[in-house]
Structures are given as structure tokens and as C-alpha cells.
């Protein structure tokens, strides 16, 4: 080798930033900062602007609504203004928080494009209906009318949400319970599997809503019949996933448990059940979407309460604003239900090596 001294490029060995030089290990956030490529000045300020974009977009939505001329002599109220203002307020709170906390800044930065797109969608729809009439009444009421429709019927809607949720969860939990029972049993015992498999193969592929006409005739109570219908729809995916889950558990898990003195009950509830949980949650998620569909069908076809019934009823009166309102309420309700389910899933499956981000 020649006598040349090797110089180490400066950026290859970043000086430990604060945390390490003080002799403590970095927090997860600091770690991500240390390991990620450093942001350039211009990139950092661009990110700041992106965080503020939703607020700007919300202001544009309100400006268009208040300032641009309406089509025909449409009557408008301030409900929509207040609604957008409220949404803008929530985003502003997040923005202010992001100035003080690095974690909420990163969260907002990730969500800002979505929020902006949401406001943009409002602006576009408002333009297509109220401002230009491209989408005409009565089939396409503008956002303000829809919001007023929801507000007018709020008491009835709340009652409908309550009834829908009661029906949904009665059917869902009944189906989950039955599904776990047959799924775990047929996973663990080949004799049970022998008798349950044909049933699964016949009933499984048929959408549970197919049975609705029969249930309408046979069931003594419509509520009971609908619970059965939803439960049947949930039962299939939960049975399948939990059975396959049990069959896929490595034998070593059972053997280790047995050599440690675990009895039959413990093998089922402390080994088979937790080991199958990742599979079961697939079934639970699938089952939830089946349950929501079955709920809507049941409510539109027979049950005289709930959100599905409300939509049908308002359609009968040609109250399209209220119909759309109900669609929005359904979306929000089901999103919340699914969000809660995913929270439970994360909590239960926290042992899994999964990157949730």
C-alpha cells in the first residue's frame, strides 16, 4: 500500500446526535431519525407546506360555497359551512400539535394528502351540483341539503343506528361463537371434521342472504330470522379459517405443551386457540363484511327498522337527500366498527412479527 492516508467521507459517519453522546440509547423516534436519510432544507419546508394544505383546501371549499353563484335559485343554509369549519378546526388542532410534537408531526404528514383529497372531493361535488348543475336535482342533492337531511332526522337516524348495531352484533357474535365451536372442533378432531365438512361444503359457498325468502316465511320473529341469517354468513368464514388455522399449527407446539404437563382443556384453550388467532382474525374480518351485507339485505327486505330500512323508506318518498345522508351514516358506522375490530386485532396479535405501519 502507498503511504496515502485514507480519509473517511464525512457523511458516512454521522456524529452521534445528542442521544448517543450522552451515553443513553435513543428512543424509537430518534432511532428512525438517525437511520433515515437526512432531509434537505427544501424538502423539510415542502413537508411543512403539505401539513398545512388541508387547512388551505378547507378554506377554498368554504370560499367556493359562500362566494360562487348558485345554479337556479337554490336555497342554501350555513349547515355545510359549519360542518366544513368544524372539520377544518380538527385539522388545525392537529396542525398546531404538530408544531410542538415530532410524533404528531409525522402522523399529520402521513395523513395530510388524504385530508386534502377529502376536502377536494367536497369542493368538486359541491361544484358539480350546487354551482354548475352538471349533476341535477332531485337525484343529486348538494352537500348542504344532505347534511340538513341528516340533521332533521337525527333522532330517527340515531334510533336506526342503534337498531342496526343491535341486530348486527347479535348475529355477528352468534356466528363467531358457532364458527369457533365448529372450526376448532373440526380442526382438533378428525371425527368431527368428518361430519362437519360436508355441511361446510354445501352451505359455505351459498351466500347466506339466499335463505332470506325462506326465513321470511318460516321464522316466527323477523329479528330472530335476521340474526340467524347474519350468523350463518359469519359462521362460514370463521369456521373455515379457524379449522385451517388449527390444522396448520406446528405439531411441536402441542408436543411441548404436553411434555410440560398440559391437559386436554389447556391444549385447546392455551395452545390451539391462541396459535390460531391470526387465522381466526382473518375470518373475523371477512365475517364482518359478510355480516354488514347481510344486515343491509335483511333490513331492506324485511326488518322494519335500522339504516337499511331507512334508506328504502326515504327512497319510497323520493327524499334523496336523506337517502344519501343514510348512506353516509352507514359508511361512518361500519368504518368505526371495522376500526374497533382492527384495534382488537392489533392488541390480541401483538406477539406477531408484523409491521403494522
Amino acid at each position, binding site marked *: 500500500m502507498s503511504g496515502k492516508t485514507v480519509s473517511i467521507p464525512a457523511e458516512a459517519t454521522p456524529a452521534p446526535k445528542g442521544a448517543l453522546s450522552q451515553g443513553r440509547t435513543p428512543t424509537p423516534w430518534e432511532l428512525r431519525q438517525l437511520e433515515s436519510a437526512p432531509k434537505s432544507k427544501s424538502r423539510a419546508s415542502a413537508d411543512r407546506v403539505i401539513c398545512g394544505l388541508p387547512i388551505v383546501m378547507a378554506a377554498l371549499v368554504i370560499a367556493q360555497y359562500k362566494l360562487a353563484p348558485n345554479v337556479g335559485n337554490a336555497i342554501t343554509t350555513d349547515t355545510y359551512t359549519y360542518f366544513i369549519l368544524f372539520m377544518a378546526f380538527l385539522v388545525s388542532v392537529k396542525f398546531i400539535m404538530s408544531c410542538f410534537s415530532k410524533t404528531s408531526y409525522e402522523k399529520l404528514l402521513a395523513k395530510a394528502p388524504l385530508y386534502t383529497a377529502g376536502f377536494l372531493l367536497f369542493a368538486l361535488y359541491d361544484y358539480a351540483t350546487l354551482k354548475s348543475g352538471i349533476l341535477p336535482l332531485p337525484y343529486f342533492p348538494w352537500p348542504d341539503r344532505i347534511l340538513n337531511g341528516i340533521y332533521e332526522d337525527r333522532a330517527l337516524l340515531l334510533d336506526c343506528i342503534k337498531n342496526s348495531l343491535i341486530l348486527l352484533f347479535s348475529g355477528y357474535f352468534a356466528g363467531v361463537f358457532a364458527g369457533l365451536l365448529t372450526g376448532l372442533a373440526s380442526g382438533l378432531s378428525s371425527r368431527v371434521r368428518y361430519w362437519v365438512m360436508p355441511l361446510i361444503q354445501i352451505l359455505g359457498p351459498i351466500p347466506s342472504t339466499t335463505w332470506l325468502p325462506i326465513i321470511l316465511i318460516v321464522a316466527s320473529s323477523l329479528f330472530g330470522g335476521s340474526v340467524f341469517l347474519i350468523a350463518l354468513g359469519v359462521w362460514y368464514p370463521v369456521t373455515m379459517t379457524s379449522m385451517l388455522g388449527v390444522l396448520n399449527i*406446528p405439531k*411441536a*407446539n402441542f*408436543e*411441548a*405443551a*404436553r*411434555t*410440560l*404437563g*398440559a*391437559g386436554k382443556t*389447556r391444549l385447546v384453550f*392455551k*395452545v390451539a386457540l*391462541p*396459535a390460531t*388467532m391470526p387465522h381466526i382474525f382473518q375470518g373475523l374480518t371477512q365475517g364482518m363484511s359478510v355480516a354488514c351485507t347481510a344486515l343491509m339485505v335483511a333490513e331492506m327486505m324485511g326488518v322494519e327498522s335500522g339504516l337499511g330500512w331507512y334508506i328504502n323508506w326515504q327512497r319510497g318518498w323520493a327524499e334523496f337527500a336523506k337517502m344519501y345522508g343514510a348512506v353516509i351514516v352507514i359508511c361512518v358506522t361500519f368504518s368505526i366498527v371495522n376500526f374497533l375490530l382492527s384495534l382488537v386485532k392489533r392488541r390480541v396479535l401483538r*406477539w*406477531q*412479527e408484523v409491521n403494522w405501519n
Partner: protein
Amino acid sequence: MSGQAGHIIVKNLTKIFARSDLNATLVALENLDMEILPTEFISIVGTSGCGKSTLLRIIAGLETATFGQVFCDGEAIRDTDPRRGLVFQEHSLFPWLSVRDNIAFGLRATGKYRSSVELVDRMISIVGLQEFANSYPHQLSGGMRQRVSLVRALIVSPNVLLLDEPLGALDSFTRMNMQDELLRLWNEHRNTMILITHDVDEAIYLSQRIYIMSPRPGRIACEIPLRISYPRNRSSSEFVNVRNMILRKLDFAKEEQEDYNL
């Protein structure tokens, strides 16, 4: 604690497997005899596929003998028993339980958890995993997992500990550390240890007696008592002599295997 318990007698053991793929049967073990005394540390070495795991699984009660019998303290073995612990080669920790709960599993299963909660903490610190008590298995290194497997089996104070290549998947540094760990645990618990290994040095370093198995069908080819005092020096002349002798015997066993293959 275990006193004179942990006495294993294998009598005329034959194990035949049905091979569904060939519609044939396979003799994994044939007329095998052995006796292991309480508190003894023995090793079984042999080429892979010669039936070591099968033998251990029968002693554990996970597999049933086709002919012959295995006795533990005078009782014929029919099922698994927490008095006979088993440590597998691959990590067979429960992935859904934290290190703590994995270790406590046996205590809970045998209904002794309430009365010995602090034993769990002691076991965790014995293998130096205090910082990882609440971690999940996938967050541990291979060596840490095997240490957890070891104390998980040990915590119910089994009279016999069956070790199926427990260190086989570890790198040589971790492995040597774990071998000392094994000796320490054995000294403390004084249980019967039956170790399967494909590492001749490991067998000589740890055990009081070595069984060499010959393959297809699995039999005891010979039995080598070791009278070297602990702790053993891997480069001492005694150690090296024994190693050379065993390697010669294993060669002989290999020739036999080829005969059977014909």
C-alpha cells in the same frame, strides 16, 4: 429434591414406522437396550436418521413403542409426563407468549404457579434474560430462545431432562457458553440428562457416558464410559484420545449403514 428418581430402563425396544408414501414399513429402532441411572448425564451420538429422536420421543411418551418397553422409575411409560421434560432442536417456544409466560407455562399447567411465582423470576435471571422477560420469541436471538426452552423445561423440576440436539442450531461461541450453562443447571438440579447430539466434542465435554448408535435399524453400537473429571479440558490428551476413538467407531457405523442400503 429428585433424590433417586429419574431411572430409565429401555428393554428390547423396537419401533416400526408405517411409511404411507411407499406403502411399506420402516424399522427405526431394533431390540434396543439401555439403562440410565438417576442423576446420570449421558449422550447419544450417531449419524442422522439412525433413530435418536425416535428413541427420545418414546422415552418422553410422545411416541409408542412397537415392541418392548421403556420404564421410568419402575413404571412403564405410556404418555407424556412433566417429570420427563423435553427440549427440542428447533425453537418450539410458544410464539404468542412472552418469555416470562413461556417459562411459566409448565407451572401453570401443573397447577404450581400460585405457589412459585418468584421461581419464574429466578429462572429468568439464571439464564440472564431479565431485560427480555416481556419480549416475544421472535424478538430473541437463537441462543436466547434455546436458553428459554431449557429453563421452560427445567422449571417444573423434571427428574429426567431429554435434550434433542438442543444446541444444534447455534454458532460455536454460543454453543460453548450453553454447554457450560447445561453443566451448571445439571449440577444445581441433579436430574438425569439424556442428550442427543451430532457434535462428538459436545458429548465428551458434557457426559458421563456416551452411547453410539448405528443406523437402519437403529441399535446401540457401543457404550463408552468417560471418567474425566469436570470441568473438562477440550485439548487434554484424555479428551483427544476419546474423541479419536469415537470418530473411529462412527466410521465403522457408517460402513454398516452402507451395507444396509444395498
